[in-house]
């Protein structure tokens, strides 16, 4: 599949093969250009019966159900589900804070693994894959395409992106909501270290455009435990001013601020119907993705 590059460090063939058994499905009807595995908002010609509808002039006479006509003397058209393909838009936060990691893996590396695996799985089932790397603007943008060659570009983009600068994810999400014309599955991979109010606005915008939004919220265990002992000079990875503090003095307040922020995020994702996954960097990304895929498969019938 990758003739010019034998391996990608963030892809594991074993994980890919195990996760291939579970399809990547959208929670909402997608509008695709070709036939695929995802439900479409339109009626189509698949084998799966959808409903009966009264005949109206102009309908194709071939779709009349003559048996019903014989029983009821009324004209009904038999409709079937339409299956289409999916556009997967990966939005990867590449701001400076994504470079943090205390467990031997940075948040950026973790994001690469999640995004690369999802891109591969989507491409494998014939869906279009695109990527947007976001820092203080759109660092790299590849629109969704279906061909395997495009997958290579996407993986290249993931490999090349480096965590740098501040994050302007909400603004970029607003921009994506406007630029992705048809319904798509938008997967956001970020630490979400930003104002919850702004996030709420951008998520709402995406939902307004009927996109299926999923979010992998990456947090490092040390960001949660904050178990520093010595006085520490904290250097802002996004270029802000450094801060000197005795962790013993501020640990409690830090935990309170973190808890309040997480509660706010949770409120937003509940309100906006976001498929939110809070992920600790010491978790196995395979399990995280399996949970993500299985959760979506169980919501297959919703249209």
């Amino acid at each position, binding site marked *: 599949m990758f003739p010019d590059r034998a391996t990608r460090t963030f892809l594991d063939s074993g994980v890919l093969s195990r996760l291939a058994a579970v399809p990547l499905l959208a929670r909402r009807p997608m509008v695709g250009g070709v036939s695929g595995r995802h439900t479409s908002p339109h009626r189509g010609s698949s084998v799966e019966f959808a409903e009966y509808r009264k005949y109206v002039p102009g309908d194709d006479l071939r779709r009349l159900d003559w048996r019903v006509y014989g029983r009821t003397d009324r004209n009904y058209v038999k409709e079937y589900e339409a299956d289409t393909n999916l556009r997967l838009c990966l939005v990867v936060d590449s701001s400076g804070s994504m470079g943090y990691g205390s467990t031997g893996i940075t948040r950026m590396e973790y994001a690469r693994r999640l995004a690369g695996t999802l891109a591969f799985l989507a491409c494998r089932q014939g869906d279009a894959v695109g990527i947007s790397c976001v820092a203080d603007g759109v660092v790299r943008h590849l629109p969704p395409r279906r061909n395997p060659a495009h997958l290579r570009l996407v993986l290249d983009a993931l490999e090349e992106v480096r965590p740098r600068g501040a994050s302007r994810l909400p603004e970029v999400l607003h921009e994506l909501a406007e630029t992705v014309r048809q319904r798509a599955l938008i997967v956001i991979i970020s630490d979400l270290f930003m104002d919850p109010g702004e996030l709420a606005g951008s998520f709402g915008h995406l939902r307004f455009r009927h996109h299926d939004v999923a979010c992998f919220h990456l947090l490092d265990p040390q960001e949660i435990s904050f178990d520093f002992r010595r*006085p520490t000079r*904290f250097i802002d990875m996004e270029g802000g001013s450094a801060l000197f503090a005795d962790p013993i003095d*501020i*640990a409690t307040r830090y935990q309170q601020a973190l808890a309040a922020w997480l509660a706010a995020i949770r409120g937003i994702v509940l309100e906006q119907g976001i498929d939110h996954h809070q992920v600790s960097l010491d*978790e196995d990304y395979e399990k995280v993705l399996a949970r*993500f895929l299985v959760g979506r498969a169980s919501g297959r019938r919703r249209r």
Partner: protein
Amino acid sequence: MTFLQPWILLALPMIALPVIIHLVNQRRFQSVDWAAMRFLLAAKALARGYSRLRQWLILLVRALAVAAAVLAISRPLSRGWLASMGGDQAAAIVLLDRSPSMSQGVVAGGESKLATARRQVAGALETLGTRRVILIDSVSCRPLDLAAPRALLEVPEGEPAAAPADLPRMLLAACELIRADPAVGGTLWICSDQRADDWKVGDGAWPAIREAIRAMPRAVRVNLLAFTDPAADNLAVRVTRAGYEPRGKGWELLLDIALRRQADTGPQRVPVAIDLGGARSTVDVELTGTEAVLARHAIPIDPATLASTAGADGDPALVTAWGRVSIPADANPADNEAYFTFGKAPKRRTVIVAENPSTRRTLELIAGIPPDKLLSAAVDVVTPEGAAAIALDDVSLVLWQAPLPVGDVATRLDAFLDRGGQAIFLPPDVPTEDSYAGIAWGAWREFSPPRRPASWRADEGLLAATLAGTSLPVGDVEVRRVCGLIGEGTSLATLPEDLPLLLRVSRDRGGVSFLATTPSPRDSDLAVNGVVLYALAQRAIDDGLAAVSPARLADAGALFPEGLSPGGTDLSSTAAPNDWRQIAGPPSPSSEAGFHAGVLESRGRLVAVNRPAREDAAPVLPDDEIANLFQGLFFNRFEQQAGGLGNLVEEVWRPFLVALVLALAAEGLLSLPFKVSNRMPFAAAGAGRGVVT
């Protein structure tokens, strides 16, 4: 506050150690790249005030812990500032008031003031590590080197005595000691109950004492342990007079017993036990007010049964014996007993040496008539020329109206006075330049009209008022002629223009008085208004009689002249040294005979020694008067109570140790990070890991 190991206080700057460690720790910070800055900023803004306060509190309790540790190791002393006001603790002088009032406790049988004082001072000196302790007790007033502070509790010189204390004299002894050996100076501990009688505020020695202490090369601190708490229900008993008289075919002992209490607590019946020759009888005395006297309490006695008491040579009239009265135990055991002796009164023998016949006759009359019909008197009249041959062995009084004695006669008179005899000199017709006892006669001076005494001592001395309080009619005496007196003496009566009429010369023993006129009608009307002259002569005879009486009552401490060893001194010229032995009373060191209550005997003569009467009534000096006595000196006064369990100076490191533990506990509590569970943020989010929402 004083410390037993003050050099450890040099480590006190270590209280800055926590601050220094904190500052060093601040410099040893680590730098980390951090993503979740927004929470840090929020936490920093929220925790700024509390964090700063907690930080300071932690530093404070750490500094307190270090300070408490240093102070505890330094072994602090309570009331230690006593010893911290200069000087060292190498030596201390303890002035111990052993007077009977110091035997008072809070309750009957409780620890006395004296015992408490000894215990507290010994404990304090031991705690302070004093190596040399010198005791000056109120009996001997001599310094006694003690091996260790603990010896203060064991030496007999610390036991109670019946004699009053003389604080000025004790302080003078201390000053002498310090002057001779400045190394012993530094701290004077005075243990006393502040009785006015012991402190003698009016004593002329006080300014000299102050000046001496102030002039010491090293600062001397005076610490007074004052035990002033009174015992309202304390009773004191004493015998004011004891004698016996024939009654019918037998004899009767007549006692005057006086009871006294500190305060009027209502009517009280006091059983007074009288021990006499092994027989005990009890008489109840009604006590209303503060004083009661049982006068002439008669006890029938058989002198024959008492003969063994003190050898009577077979004649009941010559028996001398002793007895004791006592009352039930109360707060002060020292005044619950009184000893008495009795015997037939000796003849009141007077020698008159007079050159003027009229004067001689008058003196013969007033000396030859005894004040009681049961008493007998004898008068020997000699001319000045025959004075060298008179026998003075059993004479009580010498009346001398002639040129003052010189040579052998003067020597014999000195010996007579030294054994307690009395002498009254009247001016000769023609004064000479000779002097006796530091006094010489001046010139005669006539007054017309006659003059009357302007002032006289009615409180004590030969012209004192009677026991009933009536004063002698000294003011009625008319003096027409007076002879001048050249020399120093205490004036008992003066005429206008400060002319001395009666002068008393101070002696260690015996009494010498000079009357500046004669009873001759040409000189005064002393013969016409004979009461004054009669009282004068009879009182002098009474005073002189004590020295020759076979049985007498004496005040403790007043028996022996100053400066002589009490044990080696005799009470009369006829007894050999060390001849006196104690035959009754609590055991006491022979070196302090005469200072403890009891009965002394020598060659058939008895002396009952009791505490002075003023000891029962001496008021307590106010604190400000005491402070005035030590004005300008390092003086500290500590009010103590008999039987008080607390020590005067004690180590107080335990509170500091407790403070150290509390400070460490507080530091531990404040240093707790108050961390919330690591999982709390997830729990708060309610999602858990990877929950699909």
